[in-house]
């Protein structure tokens, strides 16, 4: 088995290198004193300064933040309800509607919402349409996380609360909600991250008005590539890194409270 391990470890290291080297290059060149991403000239923070002076970019960042906050709020609310409902009741329609947007290519959702807004609602595309579109595909992620949490819990706990005198609402407030809270927060963080990063759906539903961050990046890549792109990329990576670590911490903290299903005699 030892020899096999060497092969496995080498393969693993190669794959990790494959995953990380490109990103390291992006980060590195954000500090490069050269317009071209070709060779290293010298260390500079010029591109970061340029970034903060780029009003368009700052506006785009602000818009993306607003969208992410709104979308993750709505998605967390609706997604938690979905996760609860799907786990507790034998529903046939809701699971399909909740999970399909997650499984389908994003372009389909983007295109159909564009059509819907312009054709049916006669509504100009803009921040609102983006928020709605983001919410739609984030609901599924929150629902999955919340439902997974519920599935790992001992069902009798909720019955015990009722048995000991708690009304359904009290049971939800005092028992259910505290216990799913880590999953709800993880879902919120996930939605926030997905929304900030989303390109495809935003691309179709943004209309021609406000600048949005991923679209700005896209335009820069296609039209005029400068290491400003590297700089904004690095900053975004940092942000999502922090979010993911917090989310991962919360998930593992929640499960250490002994929520694993206890074994039964039969």
């Amino acid at each position: 088995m030892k020899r096999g391990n060497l092969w496995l470890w080498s393969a693993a290291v190669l794959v990790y290198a494959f995953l990380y080297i490109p990103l390291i290059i992006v980060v590195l060149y954000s500090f490069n004193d050269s317009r071209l991403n070709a060779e290293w000239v010298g260390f500079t923070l010029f591109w970061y300064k340029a970034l903060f002076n780029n009003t368009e970019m700052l506006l785009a960042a602000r818009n993306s933040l607003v969208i992410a906050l709104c979308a993750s709020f709505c998605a967390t609310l609706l997604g938690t309800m979905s996760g609860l409902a799907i786990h507790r009741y034998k529903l046939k329609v809701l699971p399909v509607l909740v999970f399909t947007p997650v499984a389908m290519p994003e372009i389909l959702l983007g295109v159909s919402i564009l059509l819907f807004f312009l054709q049916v609602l006669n509504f100009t595309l803009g921040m609102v349409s983006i928020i709605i579109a983001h919410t739609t595909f984030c609901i599924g992620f929150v629902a999955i996380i919340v439902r997974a949490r519920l599935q790992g819990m001992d069902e009798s706990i909720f019955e015990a609360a009722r048995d000991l005198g708690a009304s359904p609402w009290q049971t939800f407030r005092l028992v259910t909600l505290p216990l799913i809270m880590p999953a709800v927060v993880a879902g919120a963080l996930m939605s926030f991250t997905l929304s900030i990063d989303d390109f495809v759906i935003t691309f179709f539903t943004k209309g021609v008005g406000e600048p949005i961050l991923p679209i700005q990046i896209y335009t820069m890549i296609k039209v005029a590539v400068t290491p400003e792109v590297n700089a904004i990329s690095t900053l975004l990576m940092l942000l999502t890194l922090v979010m993911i670590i917090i989310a991962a911490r919360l998930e593992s903290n929640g499960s250490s409270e002994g929520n694993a299903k206890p074994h039964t005699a039969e």
Partner: protein
Amino acid sequence: MIKDGTKEKQLARLLVSGPPLLFLIVFFVAPSLIMILTSFRFPGEFGGLAPVTPPSDKAIGEYGFTSDAYQFFFSDFIYTEIFLKSFAVAFGTTLICLILAYPLAVLIARSRKHLRNLMVLLVILPFASNFLIRIYAWMIILGPESALSHFLNTVLGAFGIAPVTLLFSPFAVLVGMVYVHLPFMVLPLYTNLEKHDLSLLDAAQDLGANAWQRFWRVTWPLSLPGVFSGSALVFIPVLGMFAVPDILGGTGDILIGNLIKDQFLGTRDWPFGSALSIMLTMAVLSIAGLTTWFARSATGQRAI
């Protein structure tokens, strides 16, 4: 579970499942239906759609419903070719992802708990970076001024072969697709492999199987549900992706996604764009269905 039938229980059910259901019906089901409808309409004069009924008796042009958009698809082979190319790219990406992901997934599954969590986190982290950044990174690496290109062309030059451009080529598209989707293959695989009973391998070894046989006859068949899940999670998104060919590909490398994007934001031929989207949806549903069917029959149990 408390028995259904009490009014209280039904009210609770409505309150909890109602709002999400309503939201999704309005903003997911309705748009999907609209898209189906749109694919059967005529394109408007200045983009968009032509009205269903003519504005006046004397109006010229085409109105109402038609299957023109679908016929248009089949009128020129290039469209079918793009569809086939997309399938080929999706298939290739899935295969490469599988080959790269499998050893890593095995290693993660066999590691101790703390190391395992760290390794999984390290796989997810690149996914945390912006999607465009991951594509952009390869623009840098494959670009004509990059170290890699210089190195490659020097080597080729030594053999008397003309220099090649790595960027804006099918190769670049493939690399980009693999890079973006690799984590999606690793996670389901590792989740499956983690559940394997290692004593089965010991038993096989005890009965005379060598390393390759142990893998092929024990590990691989047991990992099939994970393989199918991972493959579906890669294949389906790749089919619809347009950003990678758009940024890393050349003019001849467009896929279905690019075609659809052009119809909506370029030529504004909505019926054709919708028809293409419907066809993509059909393709995706078939793949999903096939995957589930394969997984069930290969393992005799529910895959997901």
